[in-house]
């Protein structure tokens, strides 16, 4: 990991990996959508509305996975002081917010025909809403603190505190009586979903994961360039721009 502490090395790695992850994402999402919409059967009770599951469940997994990535990055910032840890943390937050928003809205659209309501203050739904608010808080913190170093430490502490919400989301359906159904894929005793529905779900989930990896690398590249631009602008304001800074490649 320390080999990629140098942003220039990291950017070179990203340039090599991006076409692979982007291509893989396009293929996985195309296959996943085809299976989800045209091959997987309708549910005997829910009918066609079960197809919302192929978006809702992967986005819910991603909402938590992205937060775990941010938590690891926060540890990287506070404990190991890895130079790219806070870059990774900052780049992941809007993506996590996007997946969480998708999870909440698709869940609401699934809930209305199945439960008869758009929203209920049950433990699972409320804890995911809290996760969305935490994401927004982290994005806001990054925006209001100008010094990236100071912002990184504060956001890392905030992220670690917020991490307590992730197991609450996961186990909320076991700890409390909720309207939301319990886990049906990652559970003791194996999945309870039929294979014809499980495969499209898993392919969509892997597609969402590679989509996140692709966008995360792009967003990290943006953040490195943003810091380079900030450094260069400050040097230019001081009337000195060393050639080493100016000559660094943009990607």
């Amino acid at each position, binding site marked *: 990991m320390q080999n990629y502490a140098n942003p220039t090395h990291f950017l070179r790695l990203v340039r090599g990996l991006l076409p692979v992850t982007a291509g893989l994402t396009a293929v996985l999402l195309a296959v996943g959508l085809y299976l989800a919409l045209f091959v997987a059967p309708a549910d005997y009770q829910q*009918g066609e509305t079960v197809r919302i599951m192929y978006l809702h469940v992967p986005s819910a997994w991603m909402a938590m996975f992205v937060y775990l990535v941010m938590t690891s990055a926060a540890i990287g910032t506070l404990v190991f002081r890895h130079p790219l840890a806070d870059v990774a943390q900052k780049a992941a937050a809007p993506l996590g917010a996007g997946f969480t928003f*998708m999870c909440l809205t698709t869940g609401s659209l699934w809930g209305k*025909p199945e439960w008869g309501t758009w929203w209920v203050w049950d433990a699972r739904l409320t804890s995911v809403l809290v996760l969305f608010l935490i994401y927004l808080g982290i994005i806001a913190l990054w925006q209001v603190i100008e010094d990236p170093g100071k912002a990184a430490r504060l956001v890392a502490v905030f992220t670690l505190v917020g991490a307590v919400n992730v197991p609450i989301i996961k186990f909320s359906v076991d700890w409390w009586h909720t309207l939301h159904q319990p886990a049906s894929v990652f559970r003791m005793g194996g999945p309870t979903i039929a294979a014809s529905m499980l495969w499209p779900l898993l392919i969509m989930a892997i597609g969402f994961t590679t989509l996140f990896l692709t966008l995360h690398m*792009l967003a990290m590249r943006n953040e490195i360039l*943003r810091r380079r631009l900030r450094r260069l602008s400050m040097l230019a304001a001081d009337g000195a721009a060393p050639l080493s800074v*100016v000559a660094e490649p943009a990607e």
Partner: protein
Amino acid sequence: MNLAAPHIGFVIAAYAIAFVVIAGMIVATLADYRSLKKNLERVASRARLGRDVDS
């Protein structure tokens, strides 16, 4: 998929929202990159110009 099934509007709305969110994340990330690259080139060329004038 049966487009005449009950509640199909909810399914279409869910996929439409997912499309908008994912497209939004992709477009925002790429637009940010283009803007940063342009600004970086502008600042770098201004710095080079300043150094040439000084020398």
